[in-house]
């Protein structure tokens, strides 16, 4: 296992595109959250508006504990960046035909895929660490509601699982399609256009099947935070109640995705 990781590190460490996208990701996560944080402060602390009154009602989404949920939600919008890295890492192997060279040189097909699985795991952990640091940087003790002292650090686990699940999907697309630009386009189209559109339509039709769509299944582990949800407390509570169920669904779904990848890799020509 360590040897697989060391070899993957040799492949990655001198790959400029990897560091560029990682850099962009490292800026995007604090960037989006700080922008939201500033927006919140500007609107709700403006004494000329009804902001302070709303603030009393909805609490501070960046207060300690609530921050794990809020930052997790906004950060989940930007899984796209690490997804680009994951897609590049797998499609590069097909473009350079190094996937077959690795096997020719002595890796088993399973070792090749395990190495990629470890890449996805490590990138997910790195992104979660980034999310964790952003939470620590941005959190505030000001404005927390007395009754909301429940520990929401479990969102760290949800965020890790959500990231891993959606990066696994990115990997799956790259693994199937093999061409980087097609895989990226497909990922974007599925995650940002087709699935949200279908989910929206199905919800309007009162059909619940949308919650089982590949991205939606993990998205629902981190529903829109309280300050959005308060405008419809019932829906918010419903979403919060189903997070654990979706955590189970996500684990099963992600497991199936990897199982399929390993099975296919064992059988198909390289």
């Amino acid at each position, binding site marked *: 296992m360590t*040897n697989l990781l*060391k*070899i993957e590190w*040799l*492949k990655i460490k*001198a*790959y*400029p595109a990897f560091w560029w996208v990682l850099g962009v990701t490292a800026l995007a996560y604090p960037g989006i959250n700080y922008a939201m944080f500033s927006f919140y402060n500007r609107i709700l602390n403006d004494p000329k508006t009804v902001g302070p009154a709303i603030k009393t009602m909805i609490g501070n989404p960046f207060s300690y504990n609530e921050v794990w949920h809020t930052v997790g939600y906004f950060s989940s919008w930007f899984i796209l960046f690490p997804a680009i890295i994951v897609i590049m890492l797998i499609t*590069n192997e097909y473009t*350079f*035909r*190094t996937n*077959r*060279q*690795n*096997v*020719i*040189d*002595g*890796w*088993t*097909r399973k070792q090749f895929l395990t190495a990629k699985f470890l890449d996805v795991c490590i990138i997910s952990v790195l992104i979660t660490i980034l999310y964790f640091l952003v939470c620590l940087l941005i959190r505030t003790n000001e404005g927390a509601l007395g009754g909301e002292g429940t520990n929401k650090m479990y969102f760290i686990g949800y965020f890790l699982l959500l990231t891993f699940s959606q990066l696994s999907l990115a990997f799956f697309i790259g693994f199937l399609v093999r061409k980087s630009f097609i895989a990226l386009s497909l990922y974007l189209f599925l995650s940002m256009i087709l699935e949200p559109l279908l989910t929206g339509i199905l919800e309007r039709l009162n059909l619940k099947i949308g919650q089982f769509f590949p991205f939606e299944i993990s998205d629902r582990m981190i529903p829109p935070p309280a300050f959005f949800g308060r405008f419809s407390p019932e829906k918010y509570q419903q979403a919060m109640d189903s997070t654990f169920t979706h955590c189970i669904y996500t684990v099963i779904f992600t497991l199936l995705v990897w199982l399929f990848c390993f099975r296919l890799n064992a*059988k*198909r*020509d*390289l």
Partner: protein
Amino acid sequence: MNILEIQNIHKAYGPTKALNGVGFAVPKGAIFGLLGPNGSGKTTLLSIILDVLKADQGAFSWFGQNSSTDFRKRIGTLLETPNFYHYLSAEQNLEITRRISGRGTKEDIAKALRKVNLYERRKGKFSSYSLGMKQRLAIAAALLGDPTVLVLDEPTNGLDPVGIAEIRALITELSNNGHTVIMASHLLDEVEKVCTHVAIMKSGNLLQSGAVAEVLSSDDLVEVGAENLNGLARVITQLPGLIRHTVESDKLLLTLPNGSSNLERINRFCFEHGFVLNHLYLKKQRLEARFFELTNN
């Protein structure tokens, strides 16, 4: 002892049969040439024995073992094209090969690069290399750690004449040191110059395999020449054992059963029939001729 045994390998791509029951054995220490025109199934066969492609049917064994996951680590391979990470240098790419295969040390990387004259450019990125340099790097990767068996698919692709001569010399040197080399090529001259054994393929079928001498020695070829070539051509049909004769510019080419070409007997026969020969030569059959004969080209 055989290094590789292949039995009845079949592979199809939809309706196209790429391999049709191919089987042969590669003895230890042989330089084994896999010959065939483009599309004959050479690379498909090599890809199957290296686990890159899955055979539809059939089996193969390396080093006498049927299912070993580690066998590829003992084989230096160049398959089809040089496959390396474009953004990495020659050194970095070979380090990955070394870590995966477990063959050689860091010093061996420099040694392999020197062997293919790439040491001076070892820090250059693969993407900046010419076609010939890429091919040299692939050969260096195959040579890394001095494996006892090498599989080289079209090893002289993209090389200049000097490079081709160097690779030929290298293969002979490897053979002299007891290595087994399996080499696919459609360049007959190349195979004839270095191979001890050969398998000839066409359209996914194995036409013939064995030691080069055996494959080539199906018939004897004798060239004869005389002042009156047309007259000689009429008389020569009475030569006992003659299979056929063909007129080749100012000579006749006689085909006789293997081992029956006694030049003295032919000379006497012609003289007794009134023809004084000005040319009599037992021609060694060239691989090229045999190849065209077998593949009907």
